[in-house]
């Protein structure tokens, strides 16, 4: 919230759930922020990741899994486009002309209760 002089008067700007666009309050301890790591065609982590936040409500309803899947499907296309752009930029600098496509894996960073065994907290 900004006052007339343009100063920010809020204590903080809360996060929003990527699936439902609800605000994630300070006491929403069931909410979670998941980082999905980007992986190159050999399956090696590139160091970039995409972040999604899910509010406790969505997780309690049982919709978190499908929501995450849907969000990633949409994001995958953008990531691929961006990586291709970066790759072509790199190609211009180097001499190789290999065009890579990006399969991506999930490497989560979940706090709170774990839904899947391989997530690290």
């Amino acid at each position, binding site marked *: *919230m*900004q*006052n*007339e002089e343009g100063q920010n*008067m*809020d*204590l*903080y*700007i*809360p*996060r*929003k759930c*990527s699936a439902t*666009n*609800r*605000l*994630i*309050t*300070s*006491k*929403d*301890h069931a*909410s979670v*922020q998941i*980082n999905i790591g980007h992986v190159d065609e050999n399956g090696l982590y590139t160091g970039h990741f995409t*972040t999604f*936040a899910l509010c406790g409500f969505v997780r309690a309803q049982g919709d978190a899994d499908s929501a995450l899947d849907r969000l990633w499907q949409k994001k995958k296309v953008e990531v691929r486009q961006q990586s291709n752009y970066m790759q072509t930029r790199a190609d211009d600098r180097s001499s190789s002309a290999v065009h890579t496509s990006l399969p991506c894996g999930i490497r989560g*960073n979940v*706090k709170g209760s774990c839904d899947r065994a391989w997530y690290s*907290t």
Partner: protein
Amino acid sequence: MAERGGERGGFGRGFGGRGGRGDRGRGRGGRRGGGRREEEEKWVPVTKLGRLVKEGKIKSLEHIYLHSLPVKEHQIMETLLPQLKDEVMKIMPVQKQTRAGQRTRFKAFVVVGDNNGHVGLGVKCSKEVATAIRGAIILAKLSVIPVRRGYWGNKIGKPHTVPCKVTGKCGSVTVRMVPAPRGAGIVAARVPKKVLQFAGIDDVFTSSRGSTKTLGNFVKATFDCLLKTYGFLTPDFWRETRFTKSPFQEYTDLLAKPTTKAIIFEEDKLLE
């Protein structure tokens, strides 16, 4: 069974004593012994968040609120909000019937806050009043929430009222807060007025419904109402969130190092 019936007859005797004990505790507030200082300085954090706060990596409470991290150590709050004041709202004696008469315990309601956007509410029941108050203060510090303040009309100066109409409910009590113009003051009953003062809200109109006589529910309902101020999606929050790393992710290398407790434990093991 016949014996039990005889004991039950004694229940009526307990009523007389209850009225006298109810008023005690109004004047009690924020009394702390000087000898406690040493304990506070020797805080050894147990949780990851505690360690980060002790090291000074987390400088403001808002960082914790942003990631909705649960706070389990009250010293975290004391470090981040040193100017926290507390007030005992009520000491309520509650009784349980046993074979040998009633067992009385005291339930303490404590409200904690800096008068600038942070409030906490703690409820603790214990056999002694002082223990209950102490425990309630700790619980209140753990439950501190940020309170969003806004403007009634022109956005000049600092926010002074709630940003929008919010309502909170606990039990049968619903408390509704409505934005008020500057100078209106806190238009509320004695109990929620205290909580709102601690929150740092200057002007607000309130309306309550239900059995507000039950102070526990009344105070919890106002607290719930204040919690919702940062859960209300106003157009200021429409912009898409830019996620930042959670402090556990950022400082994961620091957290991976063993704490002094672990080192001492290993030394003991070697000695054995």
